């Protein structure tokens, strides 16, 4: 069990499905490894199921059932294979929730850091991506314009506010400026959803931004 979790409100929003898509994915990845949050979200999902059964039904238009039945034959049968996870995620503890997402090719921002976009099905203003740093890699000082959610999938990193390890969920709010260091001997993989692009503080760091910009 990890030490840093989404808030109760955040889990409730997740359970109801009222977070943006990328944020839903980050929280879903968290609940895969966190028993506590999985139980809490599960309870709220049960509540959703119960309320769904208890709601007064609304009559469907005529022929709705026939239309539904007619679609069945045209659909693929059995288990449709999800997208295979890219090889570069091997051994990095990629969660199941990523399996049906389309992950773009990775771009090396520096010799020690790569980014890979996670593409969402719906229209979304946010950016969701995987970032991986080798041991001792450093992500330069940068700022956030909005809200950034991070789930640590593998390894650990530290910033001035603390050290975050596999399973931890971190939310960084606007006007936070920080630099990150990958700690420990293994690489650190994180899934990040951000509602605005990050702003890098130093000149050299803008190279990172340029590369990040090319992802989308």
């Amino acid at each position, binding site marked *: 069990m990890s*030490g*840093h*979790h*989404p*808030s*109760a409100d*955040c889990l*409730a*929003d997740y*359970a*109801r*499905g*009222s*977070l*943006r*898509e990328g944020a*839903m994915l980050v*929280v879903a990845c968290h609940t895969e490894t966190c*028993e*506590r949050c999985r*139980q*809490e979200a*599960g*309870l*709220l*999902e*049960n*509540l*959703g*199921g*119960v*309320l*769904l*059964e208890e*709601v*007064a*039904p*609304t009559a*469907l*238009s005529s022929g*709705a*059932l026939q*239309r*539904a*039945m007619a*679609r*069945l034959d045209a*659909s693929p*049968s*059995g*288990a*449709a294979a999800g997208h295979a996870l890219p090889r570069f995620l091997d051994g990095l503890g990629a969660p199941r929730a990523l399996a049906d997402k389309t992950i773009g090719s990775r771009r090396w921002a520096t010799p020690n850091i790569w980014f890979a976009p996670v593409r969402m*099905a*719906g*229209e979304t203003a946010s950016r969701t991506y995987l970032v991986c740093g080798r041991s001792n890699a450093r992500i330069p000082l940068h700022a956030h314009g*909005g*809200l950034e959610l991070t789930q640590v999938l593998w390894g650990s990193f530290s910033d001035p506010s603390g050290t975050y390890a596999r399973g931890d*969920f971190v*939310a960084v*709010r606007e006007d936070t400026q920080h630099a990150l260091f990958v700690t420990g001997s293994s690489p650190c993989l994180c899934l990040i959803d951000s509602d605005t692009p990050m702003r890098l503080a130093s000149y050299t760091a803008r190279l990172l931004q340029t590369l990040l910009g090319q992802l989308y």
Partner: protein
Amino acid sequence: MCQRLPARCVRCVALGWWDTGFLADWSDAIVAIAERRDKESFRALFLYFAPRLKSFYLRLGASDATAEDLAQEVMFTVWNKSFQFEPGRAAASTWIFTIARHLRIDHLRRERKPPSLPEVSDVPAEITPCEHMLCAEREGLVRDALAGLPAEQVNVIRLSFFEDLPHREIADALDIPLGTVKSRVRLALSRLRAMVKDSS
């Protein structure tokens, strides 16, 4: 067929199960779809859940046509992803709800609210989840617990959770202060959690 409303369940009535005391669960219908592509099970599921899914989307602000399209889409996803359903681990209605929740994100172009900022404390004190409980058995407990809550608390839960009304709108609709809405939601959820935990 279903344990809750056997007399009103199309499949129970059609097959005479509710009369003979046969009680199964909607889970069986999903399993039948996964294993045998059973259209009769799909038909029963559709007749029960699609009108409720339509209500769900209508309450979230979708138009009549969109609500119906989304209900169709959810049921089609149930057909296609039935192999992902794990009976015992998940209750049928909870599983269908989570599909409905995701399609809402994909299709319902509504203004998205930003996620709430997680609290700084490591473990919020208000959460004391029941450990290691299977979703399927918990759903029955949630159902019982909900029935045991005062009507005013069920009302705010339904409005805030299911119908996705912001707390301020609930306060206006019920003509009570905003703080009261928040405390009622919090109280109701913590009572629900405690009741589920006690009976588990």
